[in-house]
């Protein structure tokens, strides 16, 4: 059944999750073949860094709060073809998020320092928050 706007709003806002404490997370979304990483609970805006990465910046202080990696399965396939040992990084179907940021960086091989910097900042953030995510790579 298609929800009216009122029904949708009520259904979404009735969830008590908003009162639960925030914890950094990442989730692979097969609908977008993308991984979204949220490290801080600030409201944000996105800025496309390249064709694979959009970085989220806080509306409060312009600091990075997370990001979205696109084309995840294609990148992972490419990486694992070039570096078969990459698969050992996948444990129980999960992978450390910093590996994904770094592998995206290696796969795209950007020449602009600003792109490299943003990938590295996100990788550092992922390492600090110890976030893992489902890995859409057949091992």
């Amino acid at each position, binding site marked *: 059944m298609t929800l009216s*706007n009122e029904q949708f*709003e009520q*259904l979404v806002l009735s*969830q008590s999750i908003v009162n639960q404490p925030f914890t950094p997370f990442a989730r692979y979304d097969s609908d977008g073949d993308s991984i979204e990483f949220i490290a801080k609970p600030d409201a944000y805006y996105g800025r*496309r860094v390249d064709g*694979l990465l959009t970085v989220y910046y806080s509306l409060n202080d312009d600091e990075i709060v997370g990001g979205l990696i696109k084309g995840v399965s294609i990148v992972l396939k490419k990486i694992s073809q070039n570096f078969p040992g990459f698969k050992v990084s996948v444990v129980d179907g999960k992978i450390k998020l910093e590996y994904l940021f770094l592998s995206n960086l290696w796969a795209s091989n950007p020449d602009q320092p600003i792109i490299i910097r943003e990938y590295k900042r996100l990788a550092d953030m992922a390492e600090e928050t110890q976030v893992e995510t489902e890995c859409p790579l057949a091992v």
Partner: protein
Amino acid sequence: MEIYKSDEFDPGFYGPKKKTRRGYFSIHAFDFRDGGMWDILINELCVTDCRGRPDALNTLAKIVPLVLQNPKAIYAGIRPEYEQDSSKDLSYGLCYQGFPKRSFRGPDELPALPGKCFLVFINAERVAYTWRWESVDPLRPLMPEYCQQRFERKVFSNDTIE
């Protein structure tokens, strides 16, 4: 209101207006094919992702449907980064762009963000999978940044929306 047509783009690809799937919300969105409404799906897990983030929850509940139903423009075809990725999934991906009059910061409702537009990305199966505020193009303030690099074509625009 203008609907753009192209021989390389078949709007019939999207199929019937009704759409449902277990584990997904089904909500109305503007159907650029005929100016009516069609269904867009949103994964229920997206609500869980809003844990501890009231602005994210309010944005999903109030801003996303508004932009889907009153887009300023709709772009089709997400340009692939790699050749291997030039599938129909990307060619028929859609991006709804809107200029909502309000935004959320923590639990507070605020006026719209200056210099920003709101984008909702939809895959070829009409599932909205991500949405966010982004800066507009400084030279063309009605368009999102890097618009021509990112999308293959504009399929709809509404000049009556400011």
